[in-house]
């Protein structure tokens, strides 16, 4: 099947509202949104602490976080598989081959991105914001809030980046999700499967959806930036 032919078939699939295709899109969105909701506060929180609080081992933690930015997602998947398998440390939880396992994997993949970007954003913030807040006698959470608001655009970039990494990752989802139809089959694992079967139309259709989702998320952020700068 040629490229044009496959793309045409893909568009027909999308327009025909193929329930299986949209089910796969639903799994991707649900898993990634849950993962981001968990990872965002955690990542920004840890990034903030690393940027503002001095403690022994802080440098090492920063270096490790930045190193983890390059961790292959299959390695995260393998480690998680070994932990969640019934032979593993958390085997009794029966989380292997569930969406929850995929959520945990994506949280682990998103965290280094969020922490590293939040850290550098807060370190690069105008020090006067913090000084002013302190001088005005603001409480600690108030100071944190002021700083985070100050660097909100950099934090949004961090979130966009982390979202892009997890929504498109395949290694970990495949390993701990198992690519079970209707349960843990998300866009990337479905594309890999359909391509392996030679069903290029379905693969392209899902690829288009993935691109549209990424575009939508980034346009939403761009819109908010424009709004608040006005």
């Amino acid at each position, binding site marked *: *099947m040629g490229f044009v032919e496959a793309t045409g078939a893909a568009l027909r699939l999308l327009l025909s509202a193929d329930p299986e295709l949209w089910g796969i899109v639903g799994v991707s969105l649900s898993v990634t949104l*849950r993962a981001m*909701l*968990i990872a965002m*506060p*955690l990542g920004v*929180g840890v990034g*903030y*602490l690393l940027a*503002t*609080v001095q403690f022994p081992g802080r440098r090492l933690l920063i270096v490790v976080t930045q190193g983890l930015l390059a961790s292959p997602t299959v390695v995260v998947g393998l480690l998680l598989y070994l932990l969640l*398998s*019934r*032979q593993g440390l958390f*085997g*009794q939880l*029966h*989380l*292997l*081959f*569930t*969406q*929850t396992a995929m*959520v*945990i994997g994506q949280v682990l993949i998103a965290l280094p991105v969020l922490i590293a970007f939040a850290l550098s954003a807060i370190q690069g913030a105008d020090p006067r914001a913090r000084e002013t807040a302190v001088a005005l006698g603001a*409480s*600690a*959470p108030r*100071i*944190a809030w002021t700083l985070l608001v100050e660097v909100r655009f950099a934090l949004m970039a961090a979130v966009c980046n982390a979202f892009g990494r997890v929504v498109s990752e395949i290694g970990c989802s495949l390993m701990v999700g*198992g*690519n*079970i*139809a209707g*349960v843990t089959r998300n866009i990337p694992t479905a594309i890999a499967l359909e391509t*392996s*079967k*030679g069903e290029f139309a379905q693969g392209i259709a899902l690829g288009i959806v993935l691109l549209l989702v990424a575009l939508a998320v980034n346009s939403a952020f761009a819109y908010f930036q424009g709004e608040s700068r006005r």
Partner: protein
Amino acid sequence: MTSTFLGWRHLAATLALLSAFLSSASEARDLRLATTTSTDHSGLLRAILPPFERERGCRVQVVAVGTGKALKLAENGDVDVVLVHDRQAEQAFVAAGHGLDRRDVMYNDFVLVGPRSDPATVRGGRDVLHALRRIAAGQVRFVSRGDDSGTDRMERSYWEQLGISVRGAPWHVSAGLGMSEVLTMAGEMQAYTLADRATYATTRARTGLEIMVQGDRRLFNPYGVIAVNPKKHPDVNFADATALIDWLTSPAGRSAISAFRPGGEQLFFVTADR
């Protein structure tokens, strides 16, 4: 210091909330079946499982991997039942106490397929070993699964019987992929490969590969089903696993397997003696 304490308290509160969120999202327990790509990608399971699911009132979650990995998942207790094709490994699996109630379900057969041009001139033969010897002698490209699946193990046993070492041979391409991908690759490379008939039939139109050798007794490919031993893994879904095994070998299951004929061609044959 206050800032740290407050930060941690907030973090703890967030964590507690999120863990509640996570547990509420976890799925109910279904029957997990680890099986080979041949049964899943050919569409067989999608055709025959729904009646069982309706009758039993449970959902079957299919994890399609190679036979080697399927048995490994079962050994770890990560699935409840396996449907695989490597009788020696299946018997070893039961003998080691990992599984119970192994039964023959069905069989199909392997075929040696290759490009229309047939550069090793093996077309029409009935002896798979003879054909493979010719391919090796002519150093014609052969794509191997290389993924420790049932098909891969079968192919390796042929080379062993021939006493030919294919490790590192430039004409022997070890792909490390599933059956459909390997067939696509063989089509692109105009190479030979060993395939189960079901997957070959579903991809034939796309790859343009043709059957070179079939009908050899050595190409016989029986599938067995095994429940994971609940004594080893007390929390497996043994009840539904046994129900599936009973159903697959019941008249209803057997006729469902025989009735699966995509494109009018029967791909799996039920085993005669139960």
